[in-house]
């Protein structure tokens, strides 16, 4: 990913802004807050003029936290949405906070669509980003009022992390108000109810004593398949479900040896299961067939399925580990 000089951007912004200075500060704050009040989360949606006039201006007695983002669906910017959600949670928390200690902090958002020229001019190809323009005068002025950017690590990308980072910066407690995810609770409650009902049905209709062994066998085999196909890795590292190439094609297998996508676990577990099933069928099912021709045919079928599945696993493994020298039937 290309990076541009942050300092260059700031200088350019300040130069642009100097041309537009001359508006009173009180007015500036009011204009921003008017915008902010229009939004239900108190996140002022700026356009390029407002941004230049009220945010980048050199002297002001209020601070602005602004995200540069691209939320329109045509940009397909996933991180933008999650940063937007976090910033909105922080902004909502600040809006509803009773004790602001006389601080004026405005949360704002500048979308590519509202300031495309500026984004182009500044060669900003790296969004989303969150910038902080601190107050330079008044009782809460910063010692170093130069604008700064918040580094978006995994921690600071979450609403709570962002809030605590901003709290540290402004020296006042800012609480994020994360919306309650009712859908999730509902889903969990529904699946719990369904599981209970299923248990009840099993208890009511199925005689566990006769079924016992098969159920246990299936459960054990499924468990082992999951464990040996990297399920725990997914639980702990939570990778994306699938990958994407630059041209937008879906890829199922991460091209590195020590990484995997979520879907890989499923593909691999199914392949293992097919191989194991072929072996079991060859031992248990095939010898019972009486008709010779039929038996021959079924035997070949299982052997082919086994060889092809194993070759498929082998070829995937070769793809992940290019130095591996052995190939089977598939490339």
């Amino acid at each position, binding site marked *: 990913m290309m990076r541009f000089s942050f300092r260059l951007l700031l200088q350019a912004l300040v130069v642009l802004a100097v041309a537009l200075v001359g508006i009173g500060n009180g007015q500036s704050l009011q204009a921003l807050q008017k915008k902010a009040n229009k939004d239900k989360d108190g996140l002022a949606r700026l356009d390029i003029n407002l941004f230049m006039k009220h945010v980048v201006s050199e002297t002001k007695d209020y601070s602005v936290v602004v995200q540069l983002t691209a939320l329109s669906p045509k940009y397909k910017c996933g991180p933008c949405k999650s940063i937007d959600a976090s910033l909105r949670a922080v902004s909502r928390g600040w809006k509803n906070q009773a004790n602001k200690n006389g601080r004026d902090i405005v949360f704002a958002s500048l979308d590519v669509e509202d300031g495309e020229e500026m984004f182009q001019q500044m060669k900003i190809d790296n969004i989303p980003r969150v910038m902080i323009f601190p107050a330079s005068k008044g009782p809460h002025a910063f010692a170093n009022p130069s604008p700064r950017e918040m580094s978006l690590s995994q921690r600071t990308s979450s609403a709570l992390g962002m809030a605590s980072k901003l709290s540290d910066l402004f020296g006042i407690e800012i609480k994020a108000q994360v919306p309650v995810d009712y859908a999730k609770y509902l889903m969990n409650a529904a699946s719990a109810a369904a599981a209970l009902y299923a248990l009840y049905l099993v208890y009511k209709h199925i005689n566990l004593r006769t079924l016992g062994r098969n159920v246990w066998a299936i459960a*054990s085999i499924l468990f082992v398949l999951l464990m040996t196909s990297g399920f725990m890795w997914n639980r702990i590292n939570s990778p994306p479900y699938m990958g994407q190439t630059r041209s937008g094609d879906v890829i199922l297998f991460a091209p590195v040896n020590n990484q995997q996508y979520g879907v890989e676990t499923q593909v691999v577990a199914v392949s293992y299961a097919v191989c194991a099933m072929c072996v079991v069928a060859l031992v248990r099912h095939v010898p019972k067939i009486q008709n010779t021709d039929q038996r021959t045919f079924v035997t070949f079928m299982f052997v082919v399925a086994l060889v092809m599945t194993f070759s498929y696993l082998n070829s995937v*493994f070769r793809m992940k580990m290019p130095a591996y020298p052995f190939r089977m039937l598939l490339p």
Partner: protein
Amino acid sequence: MAYKVFGLTASDQTSLLRIAILGLISIVAVGSRLYSVIRFESVIHEFDPWFNYRTTRYLVDNGFDKFWNWFDETAWYPLGRVVGGTLYPGIMVTSATIYNALHLVNIPVDIRNVCVFLAPAFSALTALATYQLGKEVKNATAGLLAAAFIGVAPGYISRSVAGSYDNEGIAIFLLVFTFFLWLRSVRLGSALYGALTAIFYFYMVSAWGGYVFIINLIPLHVFALLVMGRYSNRLYVAYSTFYVIGTLASMQIPFVGFQPTFTSEHMAALGTFGLIQLVAFASYVRTLVPSDQFRVLIRLSILGLFVVGFGGLVLLTMTKVIAPWTGRFYSLWDTAYAKVHIPIIASVSEHQPTAWPNFFFDLNMLIWLLPAGIYFSFRELSDNHVFLILYSLFAAYFAGVMVRLILTLTPIVCVMAGVAMANVFEIYLDFSKTKSKAEAVKAEDSVMEKKEREIQGELPAAKTIYETAGFKRFYALFPQIVVVANFLYFLCMFQLHCSWITSSAYSSPSVVLASRGPDGSHHIIDDFREAYYWLQMNTKPDAKVLSWWDYGYQLAGMADRTTLVDNNTWNNTHIATVGKILASDEDTAYELARHLDVDYVLVVFGGMLGYSGDDINKFLWMIRIAQGVYPDGFKEEDFYNAAGEYAIGDTASPTMRRSLMHKLCYYRFHEVMGPQGFDRVRKQKLPRDVTLDNFEEAYTTENWMVRIYRVKDLDNYGRSHHAASAFEGPRFKNDFVF
């Protein structure tokens, strides 16, 4: 109809063949572990083996009593370490015994060679033990296949190549053999085998911390059998004998001590021991009481016991009578625990979860034979099979959570794969049935033909190939041949896979590195030993060397100098202090280093070679560990630059540039890499103006991988070192002044 060959009957031939095959398996098992010795030399590998080697040498030189009471004042300076009480002595005692036995028969072998070749020798024993286990659960065919698998499976080779002188090298043999003895004692109900199980369990306890797996799996097996209603006197005899002798014996190891009586890891065994006594009592009562009353009695007492037992356990844990689970075990159950609470565990790459390619890498086709093996075990489900299934489930879970535990999964996967493969071969290698069938068809055909000829009154026409008896027999056998050929193909692929993995991935000593030039030439990179020998030859014998804990054992083993921290990470605070020194600015670090009496600082730096496992890449973990103990003044974020990157050189954050680690690694590095120089690991531009006043460069190895700095003594005129160097002027520019 059996033929006699050399006057041997068929069964004699079979056993002779078995012995020959097992011999060959042992030879292959040992042979495939010798790549590293052939390519490099007979050298101890990696980190922990150096400690084991050093203690073994101490044991051989000073005798067992001294070894047992050894207080090592050169480790964990200034704290020291009680070595005898904090290690598993099994491997050292084993090597020393072998060494003494060989010397007794006048074979003057060097102790280093005993240590280097111990793990391969034990791998041959593991193959034999696995054969016994496979034979115990199915038959000799399964046993031979399982032995062949474990002989070469990379999952086990990874820990037992020549030179990797570590506990696991002998522990896997002990694990498999203990389980074999246990299964046999359950099957026979024999107190003798129960006692043997306990003795090998004791050997295992003395050799590896993984013994906890045994002491939880065997009780679990017993518990499962009890729940399945399979209580028998055999089980009672086997478990009671094993538990009593095994526990008493295990408490003789000082490192274990009284743990079996109060830690949670051992409570399952104790609880099961109590339970089986109650069940035995109940089954005795049943012979005396009518069945209806007995049922009520048993239900009530089970409920009561459960409430009392579970409540008691919770109470005892809460009042800290029973020690709660230790951190490493927490990280097995709650997988996020280590990440949040114990950075020192999370920092070790062996403790990471396992992605699927790792399983395929280490076990290849065995991994999909495991589910098939589980299926076959469920078909039969004898007491032995219950054990195999439980072992598979738990080992699979642990292997999924931690990469290094593929090691404990490997034996059961080999056994299960052996069972599955034996089932296939039993059916498809048995040509007798089809042969008789084909003969029957042939006879039938000839009868039919005769009749036809009689009816038609003709001479037989020339037969087409489809009608010949040979073709018919071939047609009947063909599917079998295909199946057998297919599995033979898989077996060959497996062997190729294992040899290649062993040779390319697991045979590097990591003390000595090898690289290939673009023209295919072979280069040996021996910087580590160069640096350690420099320290040994050029510093005073009691010099204290500060380095990150990874290199502690090697420093002690090869340089024979005092270290501050080492791979026995028992004191987190001390490690954090070292991390703090390396992460602080020069002055703070100097002050701390003088407090700790440090003479030399050693850093490992891969920027010249592109060696990515160097200290700069480990640095974030040092900061995290230091931050955990010294929260004020340390922030991980300060080491990222404005763009949120972990960078070096001029784009790094000021804190990073000021840190001692950064200075020690890049000091004067641009002079050798030229003005356009790049760090070959980070692929970033080098910093130009790295100044260093409180430390002076003492030695840098050929490829700059190890850099050693001397902590300067106080200035003779009482100046700060900065003032002194400012006065003396830049040292290396003076040359151009004239």
